[in-house]
């Protein structure tokens, strides 16, 4: 026994020791931005997707969308986290165009755009430069396919549309700071040349800073005679070039307006600064209201020029960051930015996944060592710590967005996993059978893995702005949370029911009838809990619908999904009370309940109809069907167990 314990302890220490390595960052081979520079850049706020977020979050979801992962692994340039990657794209675009960045899921996409010769694998990553020869065909096809409804597109058509979108998005980022690289030539306009005698004044920020003077000049030239028209045309040409150079920077809305949030919600991108400064009819007040932003634009231009010098870059970046930060703070829009940076840097959900895996391994050992009393405590520890990490992550998200824990499909995964693990631990505390513990670890691993896959597959900000009807904290906190707890309980009950069926099938604890009685009680108790939460959640949803749309019940697919869970669980309870379902029957039906929960949670979104289609997802169908098929097999195995039991009983009778 002591040798076994040594092995277990060694395995635990080994895995625990591996944790930091698992989460550690790898340094890119080139353009190795130091940690401090990355941290400063990360905390620059940007308005994107309707909200203010850190630059690192912006970078993260752009990278996931293009690369299919949250870390870029380039064979030449090495491993890159989102923020260093974005810095490289902005400041070293020529290098960035060589990164093996764009994921192509199916080489048929490349065949379709005539790039067959570069294909090495069915799924691979390619650089901007690799794909450039196929651009004409790609964008032509993408325009054609984008006219087709997304749900009617084939996978290849969908990928072509996405690839074209990602390439365009990348190109916008790579050329966003071109205005700082190419200045308009002033030679054609002697008046402008006199106004900007030094070459460094030709910068756009310099031009914008003197927008008032230039406007006055053009107005006087417009009024004067024919002889001044050449000068006027030259100035307009310069302004046209400047505006064109700025036009690619629209996705970088990093300049908070000087006025309050109530007066203007939209932040400004460099291109908009130009429009505001030179807009016909813009008053002196309006022009002066962008002076601070123009100074920050000058800071951005500086950054481009010193990008080769790490310490100068860091210094200028700090100035830009603190300038943007001050403006954002004045508007009360900076409060959550650093918290969000910490949230992603903390990697709470990755840690919880690792700990749940560790917990699962230890629970498996715990089943192998049934007589060692302290092993369940050891196994429960990583599960509990993983749950703490998960809870911290969920809580931070709530604080960042100022919303209850569940408002998107992604958040349902996190919340349902947390509740299932917590319920499993509590049940274990009450029953001490090591079964709920095992199921908690399995659901924990599956849930966190699903959350990670979902984040990558959707490739959009997981803390998005909400549409008007969902923007109500009261109902999100009550109805959505309760329904999610119901889902969680339904899945946990189904997981425990698996133990009953497989235990019986493989003859585990054959001589211990109490073992199965205890599992049956756990299953039935969890079914009742699921029923309570599902009924309460469904009815609360009805009350919300009545308040918002004037009808308690509208037979919308998502409402029906919740009702299906209630009806299924009610049928189990009534059949059990009526004596139609014994323990095994309840276990089999509860596995079926897991299918119903999965359908309600994911399946109805795939139908793409109804008021709740906010959760509509693509590509989930295959996984869902796989899950349903698997669970049907388990139910069939339950049927086999029943037949075996019946045959055994008949044999005894004979």
């Amino acid at each position, binding site marked *: 026994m002591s040798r076994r314990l040594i092995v277990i302890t060694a395995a635990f220490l080994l895995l625990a020791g591996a944790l930091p390595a698992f989460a550690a960052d790898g340094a890119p081979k080139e353009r190795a931005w130091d940690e401090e520079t990355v941290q400063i850049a990360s905390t620059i706020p940007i308005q994107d997707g309707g909200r203010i977020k850190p630059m690192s979050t912006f970078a993260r979801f752009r990278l996931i969308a293009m690369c299919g992962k949250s870390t870029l692994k380039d064979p030449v340039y090495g491993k890159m986290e989102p923020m260093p990657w974005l810095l490289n794209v902005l400041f070293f675009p020529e290098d960035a165009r060589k990164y093996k960045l764009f994921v192509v899921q199916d080489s048929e996409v490349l065949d379709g755009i005539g790039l067959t010769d570069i294909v090495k694998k069915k799924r691979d990553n390619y650089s901007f430069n690799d794909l450039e020869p196929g651009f004409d065909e790609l964008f032509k096809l993408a325009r054609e396919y984008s006219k087709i409804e997304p749900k009617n597109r084939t996978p290849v058509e969908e990928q072509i549309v996405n690839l074209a979108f990602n390439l365009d998005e990348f190109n916008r980022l790579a050329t966003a700071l071109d205005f700082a690289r190419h200045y308009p030539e002033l030679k054609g306009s002697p008046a402008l040349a006199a106004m900007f005698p030094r070459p460094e004044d030709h910068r756009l920020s310099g031009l914008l800073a003197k927008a008032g003077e230039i406007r006055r000049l053009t107005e006087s030239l417009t009024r004067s005679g024919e002889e001044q028209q050449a000068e006027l045309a030259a100035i307009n040409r310069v302004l046209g070039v400047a505006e064109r150079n700025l036009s690619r920077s629209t996705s970088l809305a990093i300049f908070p307006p000087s006025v309050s949030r109530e007066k203007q919600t939209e932040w400004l991108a460099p291109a908009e600064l130009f429009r505001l400064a030179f807009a016909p009819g813009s008053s002196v007040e309006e022009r002066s209201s962008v002076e601070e932003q123009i100074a920050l634009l000058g800071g951005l231009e500086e950054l481009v020029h010193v990008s080769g010098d790490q310490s100068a870059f860091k210094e200028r970046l700090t100035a830009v960051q603190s300038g943007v930060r001050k403006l954002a703070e004045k508007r009360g829009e900076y409060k959550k930015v650093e918290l969000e940076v910490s949230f992603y840097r903390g990697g709470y959900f990755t840690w919880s996944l690792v700990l749940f895996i560790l917990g699962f391994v230890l629970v498996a050992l715990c089943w192998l060592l049934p007589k060692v009393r302290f092993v369940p405590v050891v196994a429960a520890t990583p599960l509990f710590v993983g749950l703490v990490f998960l809870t911290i992550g969920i809580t931070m998200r709530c604080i960042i967005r100022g919303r209850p824990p569940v408002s998107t499909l992604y958040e349902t995964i996190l919340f349902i996993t947390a509740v299932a693990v917590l319920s499993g631990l509590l049940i274990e505390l009450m029953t001490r059978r090591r079964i709920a513990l095992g199921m908690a670890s399995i659901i924990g691993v599956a849930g966190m893995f699903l959350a990670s896959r979902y984040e990558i597959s959707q490739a959009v900000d997981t803390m998005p*702005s909400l*549409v*008007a009807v969902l923007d109500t904290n009261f109902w999100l906190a009550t109805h959505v949370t309760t329904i999610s707890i119901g889902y969680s309980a339904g899945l946990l009950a189904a997981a425990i029911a698996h133990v009953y069926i497989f235990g019986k099938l493989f003859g585990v604890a054959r001589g211990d009838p109490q073992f199965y009685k205890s599992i049956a009680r756990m299953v039935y108790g969890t079914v009742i809990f699921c029923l309570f939460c599902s009924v309460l959640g469904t009815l609360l949803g009805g009350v919300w619908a009545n308040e*918002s749309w*004037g009808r308690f019940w509208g*037979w919308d697919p998502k409402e029906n999904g919740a009702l299906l869970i209630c009806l299924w669980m009610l049928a189990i309870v009534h059949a059990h009370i009526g004596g139609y379902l014994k323990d095994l029957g309840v276990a089999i039906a509860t596995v079926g309940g897991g299918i119903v929960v999965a359908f309600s949670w994911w399946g109805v979104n795939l139908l793409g109809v109804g008021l709740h289609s906010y959760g509509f997802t693509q590509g989930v169908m295959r996984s869902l069907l796989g899950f349903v098929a698997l669970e049907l097999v388990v139910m069939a195995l339950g049927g086999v167990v029943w037949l075996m039991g019946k045959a055994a009983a008949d044999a005894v009778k004979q």
Partner: protein
Amino acid sequence: MGNAGRAFIRFLGSNGLATFLLILLFLLTLLGTWEQTNTGLYEVQKKYFESTFFPLTEEIPIPIPGVYLVLIVLSVNLMVGGVYRVKWQFSKIGVLIAHLGIAFLLISGFFTMKLAQHGQVTLYEGETAAEFVSHYDWELAVYKAPGPGRAKITEHLVSTPDLEAMGEDSFKGRSRKFTSETLPFTLELSDYLKNSWPKLARGNEAELPKVVDGVYLEERPLDATAEANVRGARLKVIEKNTGKVTETILWGRQRYPFTLDVDGVRYAIDLRKVRKPLPFAVRLNEFIHERHPRTNMPKVFMSKVTKIENDVEQGVKISMNEPLRHKGYTLYQSSWGPPNAGPNQKLFSVFAVVKNPADQLPMWATLVICIGILWQALYRLLHYLKAEAGRRS
């Protein structure tokens, strides 16, 4: 009561019947949900959820019980079970309360289905309305066309069931007459179509359905969204005194009603969605819609309206999740337009209108059910913990 009667009562209140009905409800809900991918919600609702029976398929007309019937039987099962089967013990109090709440909920659903009125009001900024329009129901209105100024109008109506009966396949090729003692003419309606579109006949009248004044109605397949279907019909107006016949085409989306002069009086005939009066008027002062910055995602929809009742005006804001409730009617912010309106273009706001006497009942039923389940769950949990503690000791 004989043995057979007692057995029947036992069956009516049995757990077995409850289980069977719950499974049946489950299957019907699943089918009804699935069918929404191909058919509109309104049609699905009529077929599965508001019917007593429906045919399995058109080819196999085996009657399948609809949700409405199943819920009635379930209510009976619930009540009979409550009276004859459930033991009135302290340990069962939670179960009894929850079942009482469910009965309450079913009853409120029944009242809602029978008594609730639904419709909508569409107002441009500055407009006022004191009536609302049904989503799905159609009527034919005949009235004396009003002259200048506000005049009280008396309308003669052909009701929805009378009209809709003409749209059934069994009525095809037939016509129906409607008249009133106070009207100097009789109306003869034929070729009533549930979804139609007017088309110009370009010299090929012989191949087309009945053409009137160079226009005919093309029958279209029913739209999945029931509101989008536009009724149409052919109308003959036969004057009682002279026997003169005037023929026209009525179409549900005509901008103005059809008018004709009889004995020096101008009459209007309008095929339209059913209109119902509101006990107060509503004026839309301003519609506000905000998007999340730099996106097209709606953030706030809000209508600033004035509620006018007996010449008393009151300013009210109606927004998502914050309706206007007054005199049994509730107005919800439902939609707005035009979608691509320019900065100075007038906007319109659409309010869903509901009159439902059982409006708040589901909330109370929910409360009762939750108390019942919570009570029972806690009671069982305590028992379970006690048993587990006993097992371990």
